[in-house]
Structure formats: C-alpha cells, structure tokens
C-alpha cells in the first residue's frame, strides 16, 4: 500500500510537541495516591485508637454474667469469663493430662484454647484471675443465685449469699425478703458514710486546729526564743485552747466508735463455690448483684452507678478500684493554672519580640532558641522544675514564711503550683510561636490606620492588633493546653503522686492549697497499668481513665475553640 503524502505549502519545522504520555507529571497528579494514602493511614490509626479506647472504656463497667465452671476433675470454679487465647501446653503439663485430653491437644497440632476467668475472692485464694484450658472444662453453668460482690477491701467476691445477720438475728438466704438485702446494704453504707464523715471531716477539722495551735507555739519559740515570756504565753494560750479541742475529739471518737459497734453487728456471710465462706460487716460491701439474674434495666442501673462511683469517688485498692475524682480535679486544676500562667507570659514575650524588638540577628537567635525549647525532652523540664521551683523557690518561701513547719516542707517540695509552672515553662514556646504568627498576620493597613489616627503604639497594639490576633493566640493556647494536659513525665518529679485524697481546694483557710501534691489522670493511667499489684484488674481502668483523659482534654479544647470561633466571626464579615 502506498502512502500518499499530502501536498501543500511547506510548513516550517516546529519544535516537536511534547507527547503527553511521556511525562506523567505534566498532565497527571502522580502523587495523589501517595497524598491520599498517607492521610488514610493517619485517619485509620487515629480512628482505630479511638475505637479501641472507646469500646474498652465504655464496656468496662457493664455487668457481666458469672459462670460456674465444672472441671473434669469435679472441682468448681466461678468467675466472670473474659478473653480467650490459644496456648501450647508444655510437656510437663501434657503428661499430667488424661488420655482423652492429650488426644484433643494432639489433634490441634499441640495447641489448646484457654479462657481467663475473673474469680475474685483474693482473700481466699490469693489470685483474682485464673486461666482455664478448654480441655479441662466439663460443664459451664450460669446459676441465678450467683452474686458478684464489690467490696471495699480485697477486690470482688464471687459466690452466693449464705446469711445476713442483723443485730444477732441471723437470716439465711432463703428466708430473706426480696429487696431486704439491698435496703440493709443502703443502711450499712449510710453508717459507713457517717463514720467516714466523722473521722475525715469533723476529726480532721479538730486535728487541723490542733496543728495550728502547735505551729503557733513553735512560731513563738522561733521568733522569741524558747523560754522567753512571749513563747511561754503562747504555750499557755495554746494549752488553754487545746482543752476543748481535746474534749471535742474524744466526743467525736466515741460517737464514731458507737456507730462502728452498731455496724459490726450487721454482717453478711458469703460462700464461694469451693465451699469456703466469708463473714464480714455489710458496710464493707460496695455493690452486690445477682450477676446471672439481672434485667436490662438492672444492668443499666449497675452500669450507671459504677460510672458515677468512678467519676465522683476516691480510688481504693491501690487505685485499681473506686473512682478517680481527685485525679480529674487535679488534672483540671493544673491545666487551668498552667493556662493562666502561660497565656500572659507567652503573649507579652511575643509582643515584645514582634512589635518592639528591632528585628535583627539577636532577635532571630532568640526566636530560634525559643522554637528549639519546644523540642527539649519534657523530663528535663521536670528536673528543672524540681530543682528551681520546688527546692530553690519553694525552699526560700518555706524559710521565710513557714519556718515553724520545717523540717517538713510546705512549698519546698512538689505541688500543684510548681507542676503548673513547670508545664507553663514547657508550653510557653508554643504560645510564643503561635502569638508571633498571629501578630505578624495582622494586616499592616490596620496598624497604619490606627497610627494615622494619632494612636500611640501601645494603643494600636491594645485596640487593634491584639483583638485581631486573638483567634491565633487562642489557637496557640489550645495547642499548649493539649500538650500540657497530656504531659506526665515532668509531673512525676514536681508534685503528682499516686494517691492524694486531699484536694487542693477545701474548707480550711486559705481554702486554695497550691502547695499540695495532687493526682493526675495521665499518671493514674501509668500507675494503674504498670505499678499495681494486679495489672489484669487494672487494665480496664487504664482504658476508662484514658477515655476520661481524652474526654477532658477534648472538652477543654472544645471550649477554647468555641471562644475562638466566636472571636473569628467578628472579623470574618465580608470585605467588599
């Protein structure tokens, strides 16, 4: 076939047109998949993490049924079934098994399944959890008479109610009227609360006053010297005032004893499936429910009451049980105090750097240094906070204002104030950088407009620049807050403790005690998860506490974001 060349006027040779297929980047978006993929991985990780925490956190307090497992050898085990896992029985274990069991294991290539039961009854068996291999199980029942008992001490009890003794009159489980146990329990808890109130609040107040008297005497001795007339007078006055206090203390102690005696007369006898029983005061019981015989409403009731306990009570049993209220309060108070310190400090610094300092090499060095401060490991700040704030500053404050309390330190050790200041130091670079950017983003025309009206530089900053930069500054504060609330390592050095039931705010003068050590949700997670005697029992608490910490940080940030958006709307009205 011949090709007929078109005949026409000669076209001048052109640069060959670029062939599209040759260069993907010329017409396509070759990295779109990479961009989207990176984003997708990030989102999956975050969502996966949140779902894990949410699911475990939300499910923890839901009451679970109690299984009674009959083993092949005829013994009984009762407990809440939790997770299962495959395992490979060792040769020793295999040799102790029966022939049929060995065959079952061998059929599964030497693997077997086992299930973890929360058997409770730590005081009887010295273990809370027990693994039971599937091949050892003969039968699993859920008898309706099984109860799950949460106690103030020794963790939960799993078993049956045998008898209830009220003032010498003993009733067996069968003769109990429905609801009688719960009403007696409510009364017993009431008594317990009253004892606690007397011991903690009333006797606490008396002790507080006695301590004040003791300190006053010591102060007088320190000021005027031992044996001086002033010191002797103070001593006499203190003794005079101590008398009624002493009497009040005796009266309160007697009242508490009386209630305790009455309380000891009401006991509950519980029996476990192994046939051992346990008698204890009913007031030691926190919650009792028939785990296999609950309607949905009753389950919801248990669930809600557990959440309420968690949010409003103090921890017990090495933090693995009870609530985390002091930790919530501590985290909140510390973060708030940190923001109160860091906001003016960071903003004023940034104002100087951006508005007043002559831009040059020195300011650049300062700016780079500030940026790099954000990268210093937080534990270093903790060490600095302990050394500078607690020991040097706090020690000096103690020497000057609280010499009568020495050698026990007041401000000279970790505490809420020092922790907040340390975190403020840690987060101040974030605030400075964000504020500087916000200030730089204020249009020059705004400043010029204000200056041309005859406003001074400060008036311009105060009236025009700062309000306009406020949303950006708040963004910086939000970042600082998120970082500060989630920080744990430095806090362990400057005031966070495992257990501090005394809140930093109470009814004793001066009402706000910034020198007190406090609890923190982040540290609580670490402590419950890794420092408690029973990590299996602590695990659900880790998830719940994590959920709570995330919730708290999210709530605080949401508040700040709402404020910021309200400010932003003010400036976002259409131009033209």
């Amino acid at each position, binding site marked *: 076939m011949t090709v007929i060349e078109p005949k026409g006027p000669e076209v001048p040779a052109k640069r060959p047109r670029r062939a599209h297929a040759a260069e993907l980047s010329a017409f396509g978006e070759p990295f779109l998949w990479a961009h989207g993929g990176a984003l997708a991985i990030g989102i999956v990780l975050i969502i996966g993490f949140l779902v894990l925490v949410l699911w475990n956190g939300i499910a923890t307090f839901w009451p679970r049924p109690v299984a009674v497992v009959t083993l092949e050898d005829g013994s009984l085990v009762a407990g809440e079934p939790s997770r299962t896992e495959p395992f490979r029985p060792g040769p020793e274990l295999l040799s102790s098994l029966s022939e049929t069991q060995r065959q079952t294991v061998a059929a599964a290539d030497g693997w077997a399944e086992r299930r973890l039961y929360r058997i409770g009854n730590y005081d009887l068996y010295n273990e809370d959890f027990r693994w039971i291999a599937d091949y050892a199980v003969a039968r699993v029942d859920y008898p309706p008479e099984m109860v799950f008992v949460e106690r103030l001490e020794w963790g939960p009890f799993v078993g049956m109610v045998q008898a209830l003794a009220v003032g010498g009159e003993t009733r067996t489980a069968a003769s109990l009227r429905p609801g009688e146990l719960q009403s007696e329990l409510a009364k017993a808890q009431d008594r317990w609360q009253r004892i606690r109130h007397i011991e903690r609040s009333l006797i606490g107040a008396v002790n507080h006053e006695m301590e004040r008297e003791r300190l006053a005497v010591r102060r007088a001795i320190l000021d005027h010297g031992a044996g001086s007339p002033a010191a002797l007078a103070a001593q006499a006055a203190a003794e005079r005032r101590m008398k009624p206090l002493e009497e009040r203390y005796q009266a309160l102690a007697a009242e508490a004893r009386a209630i305790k005696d009455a309380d000891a007369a009401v006991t509950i006898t519980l029996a476990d499936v192994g046939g051992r029983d346990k008698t204890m005061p009913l007031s030691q019981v926190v919650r009792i429910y028939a785990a296999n015989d609950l309607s949905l409403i009753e389950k919801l009731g248990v669930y809600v009451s557990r959440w309420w306990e968690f949010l409003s009570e103090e921890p017990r049993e090495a933090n693995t049980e009870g609530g985390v209220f002091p930790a919530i309060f501590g985290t909140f108070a510390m973060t708030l105090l940190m923001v109160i310190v860091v906001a003016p400090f960071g903003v004023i610094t940034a104002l100087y750097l951006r508005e007043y300092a002559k831009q040059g090499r020195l300011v650049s060095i300062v700016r780079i240094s500030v940026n790099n401060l954000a990268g210093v490991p937080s534990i270093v700040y903790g060490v600095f906070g302990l050394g500078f704030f607690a020991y040097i500053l706090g020690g000096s404050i103690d020497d000057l204002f609280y010499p009568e309390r020495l050698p026990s330190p007041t401000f000279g050790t970790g505490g809420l104030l020092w922790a907040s200041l340390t975190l403020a130091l840690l987060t101040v670079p974030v605030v400075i950088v964000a504020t500087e950017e916000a200030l730089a983003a204020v249009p020059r025309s705004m400043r010029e407009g204000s200056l041309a009206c*005859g406003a001074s530089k400060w008036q311009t900053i105060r009236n025009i620049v700062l309000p306009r930069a406020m949303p950006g500054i708040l963004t910086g504060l939000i970042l600082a807050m998120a970082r500060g609330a989630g920080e744990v390592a430095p806090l362990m050095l400057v005031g966070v403790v495992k257990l501090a039931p005394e809140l930093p705010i109470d009814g004793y003068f001066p009402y706000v005690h910034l020198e007190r050590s406090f609890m923190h949700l982040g540290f609580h997670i670490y402590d419950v998860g890794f420092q408690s005697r029973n990590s299996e029992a602590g695990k659900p608490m880790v998830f719940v506490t994590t959920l709570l910490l995330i919730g708290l940080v999210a709530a605080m940030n949401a508040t700040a974001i709402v404020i910021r958006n309200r400010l932003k709307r003010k400036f976002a009205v259409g131009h033209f």
Partner: protein
Amino acid sequence: MDAAATTTRDAFEPTEYHQAKSSQGEIIEIKDFNLWYGQAQALHDVNMTIEKGMVTALIGPSGCGKSTLLRCLNRMNDLIDNLKIKGRMTMDGMDIYAPGVDVIGLRKRMGMVFQKPNPFPKSIFENVVYPLRVDGVRDRRELEEACRRSLEAAALWDEVKERLEDNALGLSGGQQQRLCIARAIASDPDVLLMDEPCSALDPIATSRIEELIDELRGTYTIIIVTHNMQQAARISQNTAFMYLGRLIEYGQTEVMFTSPFQRRTQDYVTGRFG
C-alpha cells in the same frame, strides 16, 4: 526619554497667576528633602509648598516617590527600618522632623486615608470615634456628636445612621472608604492626606469620593496621591508631577494640564508614557 534635552528647573516657582489665586497662605513647606531606603535613594531634593485649603494632587508613574513623600508628611515612614532622610519639612513653621517632635500630635493634625479601605473590625460608631477614644474622650454625648458630624461631612450619615452599632466590615467598599474619611476628619485635623483613595473602588464610588473631596476643600488642606490624571484634573487646584524621585513640575492644575513648562510633564499628562 531624553532627560538632558529638557530644561532643568526642579524647584517650582509659583506663577503670578497662581500667587494671586492663593489667598490663605502656605501650610506645609518641604525644603531639599531627600530620602533613602537603605542604599536606594527614593526622593531627590524635593522642594514644594502646600497651600492652605487647597487640594494638591501628586501625580506620576508608579514608583516615582509620590506615596513616599505623602507618608513622610505624617511620619508614617517611621515604621520602616533602614530609612534615612535629609532636608526639612515644616507645618505651620514647625519642623516635622525636629528631634523630640510630638509625632502623635502631628498625626492628629493630619488625617490620613489609605489606598485600600481599612476600617477596624469594630462597629461603625467605634471606627469613627477611634481618634477621640485614643485621645481619652469618654463623654458619650461628645462622641456621638463627633460621630454624627464626621459621618455627615463624609456623606455617609444617611446611609448608616440606623446601624451605627453594626460591624464596619459589613459596609461596601465605597462606604468603607468614606467611613475611613470620616474617621480621618473626626479629630478635626488641618490636613487630610489621601493615598490613592479611589484605586480600589468602582467608578460610582469613586465619583462619590471625588464629590466629597470637593466639599471638604476649604475646610481642610487636602493632599491626594493619584494615578488617575483625569481625577487630578477634576478635583485639584494644584498638581505636582513627580518622576524617579524628583519633583519635575509643580503648579496650578490648569496650567499643568494645558501648558506645562516641562516636556516630561506634557508627555505624562497627555499619556505618552507612564
């Protein structure tokens, strides 16, 4: 263009005709004024006098230094680092650049309107009374009186009197610019500096501003930088033509636009370059 071919008469000598027209005398005098941004010289030996109560237009191609000159008058250029000046500028005989001069007081005597409307993100009322607020005026009656007077003078009162508490950013571009004029005259200055006040506005808004400038003439001495030669011809009494940092010619507007002394002025006003 061939600079050497033209006569060199950098300083303006008022014509007799012009002197006769000038009744109120001079308010600003600029003498041998030079300015450098770092190494680059932006103004070369500028000499001119501004007459009281007149509208003086500064025209010239981009980058000729007219805005720089304007911003030197109320010392807005102080904000720029590495700025060096030489020469004298006086207002009513007071040296603007004397050491220790009250810059804030100076700016209160010279209202300024910028190229782009720059109302503050506050209410219309607060925008107008801002110069009084920074003066420390607290009396509500006085503020309201000043607000009304300024807005009326800026021909904006009827449009906004119902919504003085609304955010000023909700106004249209032309309204915003008139608001800025109202703000500039709220503190009752002597001089009004306008840096291309209409360049960001549409023709209708522009004509309203021009009318306004016409009305304000006499009460205030107005110095206006403009790119628009028709605008300069329409609203000004005196016109200064600047080129490459030099004042080429300065005179009565009619003369400048009909029979300028300088070739370059003629070329520029007739649109042959620029």
